[in-house]
């Protein structure tokens, strides 16, 4: 008898390390040893697109940063590629490593503010054709707005 065990897995390869017992999930980036530029997602072509140096080292990125812009979407894009919930929020978060990350935001959306802090969380994006949960990274806006000090 073969029953398929439903599992939960990242929605895409190479973007994040899901962590595990005692290990936090981390976004995967790389850093150029020539100019110091940091990339997310990782550049896989072996070349820094800023200085064309070929020495890129893999790094893990911080799970918190500052919201640099955002939107809340009420009409999903055409094409049927997006299978998550609507409305959804997305935008960019600047991490302490000096890299801007494109991300969805976790609820509550009414806390979203330019300059606000946000923390990475793992949440369910959608379900694949076999019934497995597909997980994504998101950034959850913090209650206090950094710029409001």
């Amino acid at each position, binding site marked *: 008898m073969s029953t398929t065990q439903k599992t939960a897995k990242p929605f895409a390869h190479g973007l994040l390390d899901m962590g595990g017992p005692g290990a936090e999930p981390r976004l995967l980036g790389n850093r150029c040893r020539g100019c110091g*530029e940091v990339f997310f997602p990782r550049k896989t072509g072996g070349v820094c697109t*800023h200085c064309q140096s070929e020495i890129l080292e893999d790094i893990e990125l911080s799970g918190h940063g500052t919201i640099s812009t955002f939107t809340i979407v009420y009409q999903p894009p055409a094409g049927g590629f997006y299978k998550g919930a609507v409305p959804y929020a997305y935008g960019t978060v600047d991490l302490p490593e000096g890299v801007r990350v494109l991300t969805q935001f976790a609820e509550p959306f009414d806390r979203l503010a330019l300059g606000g802090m946000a923390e990475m969380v793992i949440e369910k994006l959608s379900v694949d054709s076999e019934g497995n949960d597909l997980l994504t990274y998101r950034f959850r806006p913090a209650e206090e707005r950094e710029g409001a000090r």
Partner: protein
Amino acid sequence: MREAFISGAAVTRWDYYENASCHQFGSQAVLQALRDAELRWQDVQAVFCGSVYQGTGSGHQAIREVGLTGIPIVNVENACSSAASAFMLAYQMVAAGVYDVALALGMEKMPRGPIPSTAFRDWELSLGFNLQPGNYALLTRKYMEKTGATERDFALVSVKNRANGVLNPNARFRKPVNVEEVMNSRIIAEPLRLLHCCPLADGAAAFIICNREKVKNASRAVRIASAVLTSACYGDEYPPGDLIGSVRFPSTENLVQLSARKAYEAAGVGPGEIDTIQVYDTVSPGELWDIEELGFCREGEAPGLLRDGAFNLSGKLPVNTDGGLLSRGHPLGASAGGQIFELAVQLRGEAGPRQVPNARVGLAHSMGAGPNSAVTILVK
């Protein structure tokens, strides 16, 4: 470089063509442009055809409806700047003396139903990042923070352009809207609402570009002062993907500013000498930052100028005189051709009720996924 002129220009009506193929209405634009130039098809020595969703050899298919003369036909896909890119190539070939007469064509029949997007990576598609109003909303939020522009300012852009569209017989939408209608239309991606976003459309634009010797009617010929195309500079912010700006190495001159500077240098004119412009209003706020990035005012000044009426038909710098994309609609591979056509009409003094008095120099700017940025400057 030799002088090169638009001697023939034509567009179809911007609309949904349910019963005509792109090749049919594309070829109709070609024949109209040819008649406008008072030339025969046998005079045309090369074709550059811009489109996005029309598939392999689409320019060839349109030209098969016109005539087979063995000339080179080059198909150009450059997202929303496809027609401007085809126009630039035709211009450069004539200016370089390779051809006496070349045809630039832009045409599009927008896909019905879901649009398979190839401008985004798979992970971006899965996360819903392929919504262009969403990506413009990301830029809009920053623009509001930086300049103090308001949603009402963006509504005023829609109101102005839709008012201009009423006067354009080729526009898809010819009904005016008021500020309240825009501000009450449904939210697509905060802070952008439906009436801040351009609709889609089908259509084609065609231009006969030739040297001075081939101009039949000098009083209607419009000189091409420059046609420039750029792509991203490192650190540019034009979401999504890895084009969300660099924290460490932000660009000091973005691709729009670069294309404008190069176009002004090549044309030998500056923004102060330009009488009317067609800029990229896929979403209303985009018109404002486009005016700023093209150098017509400083950052943050466009909303105030808009409120003062400077960009109206009767203003100091009429912008999107044909109603822009907000009225014409957006047939991706043809859109930039629609802009250049309107400039030609204005500089010829043939714009009727939307004529800008004494328009002598005009600029058109388009941009698209890639990203790319195209600036064309015409002089009468």
